[in-house]
C-alpha cells in the first residue's frame, strides 16, 4: 500500500510544485506586490475549472476513449437557460438552479444514450451532442443580456478576508468527491471499469449503470459550473464555456489522473487548475503578447505532461 500511495502521491504532487513555482516566479518578478491578490484571483477562477474538472476526471477514469467533449456547450446552455428563467430575480433563484440541473441531467442522459443505444464512441458521441447543445443554446439564448439575480452574483463573488467563499465550498465539495472516489462502491466501480471494463462486468459490477451515472455527473457538474459562472461574470454568454474544453482535460491530466483509466485523484485537479491560472497571470505580468501567451500556455501543458504525465508501462 505504501508503494501505491507513493506512486499516487507522485502523480498529483507535480501540479502543486508547478503552482508554487509559477507563483514564486511571478512574485519575484513583481517584487511581491499583489502576490496575495493573485492567489485570491486564482482561487476564484480555478473554482470553475475544478467543478468541470472533477466531472471530466470521473469520465476519463472510466477508461481509454472516455472523455466528455460536451462540457463547454453544456456550460453555455445551462447558463443561458438559468439566466432566462431567473430573469434577474432572487425569487427565482431555486427554480433557475433546478432548471440548470435539469439541463445537465438531460445532456448527460442524451450523451449516454448515444454511447449506449447507438454504440457511438464517447468522444464522437459527446462531440456530436455538443453541436446540438450549442445550437440549442444559440437559438435559445439569442441576444441574451440578462443580469444574474443579485443574490447569486453576491454569493459567487463573496470573499472573506481575501478567501473566495465559493472556492471554500468547492474545496469541501472536492473532499467529498475524493471520498466518493476512494471509499464508495460507485468510486471503486469507476476505477475497476477504467482498468478493464469486461473484467469489471464479470466481477459483478453493473458497468452500464456506473457509466450512465458518470456521464450524468459530468454533465450536471458542467451545468452547475455554467450556473455559477454566469452569476460570477454578470450574465451568460454563448462562448463562455469555450475555454473549458482544454481546461477540463488539462487539469485532469496535469493533476495526475491516468488517461489510460483506472487511476484518479482529486487534489491534483485543484493544483492543476491553480497552476493553469497562475501561469497565464505570470505571462501577463511579463507583458507577453497574445501569441506568445498562447504558445507558452500550450508548450507548458505539453512539457508538464511530458515530464509528469507519461503513463508507466502497464506490464
Amino acid at each position, binding site marked *: 500500500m505504501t508503494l*501505491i500511495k507513493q506512486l499516487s502521491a507522485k502523480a498529483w504532487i507535480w501540479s502543486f510544485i508547478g503552482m508554487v513555482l509559477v507563483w514564486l516566479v511571478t512574485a519575484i518578478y513583481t517584487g511581491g506586490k499583489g502576490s496575495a491578490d493573485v492567489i485570491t484571483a486564482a482561487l476564484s477562477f480555478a473554482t470553475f475549472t475544478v467543478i468541470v474538472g472533477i466531472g471530466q476526471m470521473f469520465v476519463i477514469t472510466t477508461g481509454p476513449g472516455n472523455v466528455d467533449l460536451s462540457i463547454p456547450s453544456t456550460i453555455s446552455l445551462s447558463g443561458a437557460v438559468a439566466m432566462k428563467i431567473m430573469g434577474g430575480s432572487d425569487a427565482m433563484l431555486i427554480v433557475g438552479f433546478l432548471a440548470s440541473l435539469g439541463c445537465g441531467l438531460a445532456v448527460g442522459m442524451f450523451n449516454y444514450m448515444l454511447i449506449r443505444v447507438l454504440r457511438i464512441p464517447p468522444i464522437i458521441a459527446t462531440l456530436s451532442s455538443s453541436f446540438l447543445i450549442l445550437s440549442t443554446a444559440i437559438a435559445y439564448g439569442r441576444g441574451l443580456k440578462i443580469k444574474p439575480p443579485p443574490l447569486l452574483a453576491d454569493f459567487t463573488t463573496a470573499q472573506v478576508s481575501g478567501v473566495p467563499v465559493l472556492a471554500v465550498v468547492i474545496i469541501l465539495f472536492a473532499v467529498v468527491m475524493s471520498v466518493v472516489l476512494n471509499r464508495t462502491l460507485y468510486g471503486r466501480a469507476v476505477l475497476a471499469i477504467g482498468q478493464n471494463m469486461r473484467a469489471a462486468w464479470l466481477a459483478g459490477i453493473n458497468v452500464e449503470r456506473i457509466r450512465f451515472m458518470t456521464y450524468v455527473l459530468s454533465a450536471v457538474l458542467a451545468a452547475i459550473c455554467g450556473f455559477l459562472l454566469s452569476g460570477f461574470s454578470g450574465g451568460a454568454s454563448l462562448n463562455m464555456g469555450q475555454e473549458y474544453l482544454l481546461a477540463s482535460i488539462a487539469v485532469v491530466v496535469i493533476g495526475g489522473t491516468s488517461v489510460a483509466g483506472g487511476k484518479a485523484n482529486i487534489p491534483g485537479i485543484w493544483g492543476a487548475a491553480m497552476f493553469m491560472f497562475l501561469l497565464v497571470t505570470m505571462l501577463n505580468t511579463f507583458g507577453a503578447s497574445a501569441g506568445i501567451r498562447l504558445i507558452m500556455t500550450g508548450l507548458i501543458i505539453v512539457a508538464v505532461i511530458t515530464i509528469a504525465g507519461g503513463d508507466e508501462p502497464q*506490464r
Partner: protein
Amino acid sequence: MTASDGTIVSLENVAKHFGAVRALDGVDLRVDPGMCLGLVGHNGAGKSTLMNALAGILAPDRGVMKVHGHDLTDRYSVAVAGQNGIRCVFQELSLCPNLTVAENARIFHPSLTGWGWKRRAGDMIAGKLDEIFPGHGIQPDDIVGDLSIGKRQMVEIARAFTVTDASLHLVILDEPTSSLDAVTSKQLLDFVRVEVDQGLSCILISHMLGEVLDYCDRIVVMKDGLVVAARAGAEFNRDTLVAAMGNVVEMEEIEEHEAREWQRGKTPVAVEAKTDTGNDWAPFIAHKGEIVGLAGLAAHGQTRMLLKIYEAAMRGRKTATVSGPVALVAGDRQTDGIFHLWSISRNIGIRSLRGMVRRGLIDPVAEAAMGREWQDRIKIKTPDMNDNILSLSGGNQQKALFARALASDAEIILMDDPMRGVDVGTKLEVYDLIRDEAEKGRTFLWYTTEMDELYNCDHTYVFRDGAIVADLTRKELSEEKVLQSSFKESA
C-alpha cells in the same frame, strides 16, 4: 562445445533477474538440428523468460548465447533471431486483428515487398495452412479479427513456419495447443514431427504432459529459474515427469478423488438453461451442490452458455433460470479477470464489496481481512497481499481470481476454462477446494478443455456447434465418449 558441431542454439549459464525475482538463474540449454525439445515446468519456472531470451525480446543479464556457433550475446535482438532462422509463437496472440491473414504474414517477412506482395504472402500462408491444418477453412484475405480464436492460433502457428529469404532452423512453440481442439492439436504435433524428422528443430512448451511425452525427443524440466532435469523423452513417463517438476502431489491423486459419490436430483435445481441453437439433446441442468462439466472442442458454445447464465443472473433476464447469485472465474486472466493497477487484496475483494460497506463507505479493514483469509485458504504465494496483482505468477493470479469468486456470496460459480496455462500443483490444490465448496452446497459449472478435469465433475454436458450433444454422468464419462460426441456428424 565447439563452434562447428551443428548446434543451432546453445545457452551457457544464462540469467535474467527482474528486481528480486530470479526468472532465470543460470540456465544451460542446447538445441541440435532435427530435435524436438520439450520444455516443462510450473508457472514461474522461467520457461517464458527463457523463450523471450531466445526470441531476442529480453536481453539476459549474464551468460553466453551462441547461435550456429557464433557468440551473439551482445548483439542479439528480434531481428538477429529472425536472420538466424529462429522464430517464436507466443502464448498471447501476436497477430494484428485489423489486417488480413496475408498482411499478417507480410509483417513477419521484411523482404515481402514490391509488386504482387499481397498475392505472394497469401499463397505462402495458405500453402502452409494447408500443409499443417488440412481443411482449415481460412482464406488469405480474411480479416484476422473476424476469425475464431482457434483459427487465429492456426494462422499464427502457420506463419511461424513460413519461409522467405532467411532459412528456418528453430521454431519455439509456447503452449501452441491452448486454443486448439483435439483434432487440430494433433495435426499440428504430427506436422511438427514430420518437420523435425526433416531437420528442423522445435521447442515445445506445454502444460499438456501427454503432448510433450509423445512428441519430444528430449525433455527439459525447469524449476525456479533453473534446469532441474534434461533427458531423452523416452526416459520419462508421466509420473517421473511430474516428479521432476517438483510436484508434491502426484497426478494419480486426481484419480483417487474420483470416488466422490453423487446422486443426481436429490437437491433442488440451481440452474436450468438451453442454448440458442434449439438443437439441444438435453436441457442444461445443474443441481445445488453439483459440479457440472461443459466439454467438447474449444469454442463450441460452452463460454456462451456460461455468459448466458451469468447475464440471466446479473440482469434478471428470463433466458435462463438461476436460483441464486453467481460469480465467474475467468480463464483469460488478462482480458476477463485481473485489475492490473490494484493490489491482490483489492482484486479479491471487488466481488464482495457490497458486504463491506459500513455507513455508506467501504471498510478497508474488512477488505484486508478478506485478503488475508484467502491468502491462507488458497495459498497465494506472496509476501504481502497489498502488492500489485502483477507481482504474482500466472498460477497465483488465477488463484486470486478463484478467491474472488469463492469469497463472494455466490451460490453458483461459473468457471470459464480457468486452468488454461496453470501448473499441475496449483490445479490439484484448486480441485480440492472446489470439491470442498461443492460439499458445502455450492454449485459449479465448469467449462474445461482438459479431459482430466472432467473427472472432477459429477455430470458433463458435451457441446458441439453451440448445442448440447451429450449428457454424461460421472460413470458414463470417458475420453472416448466425449470425443465421439464432439465429432459426431449431425443427422
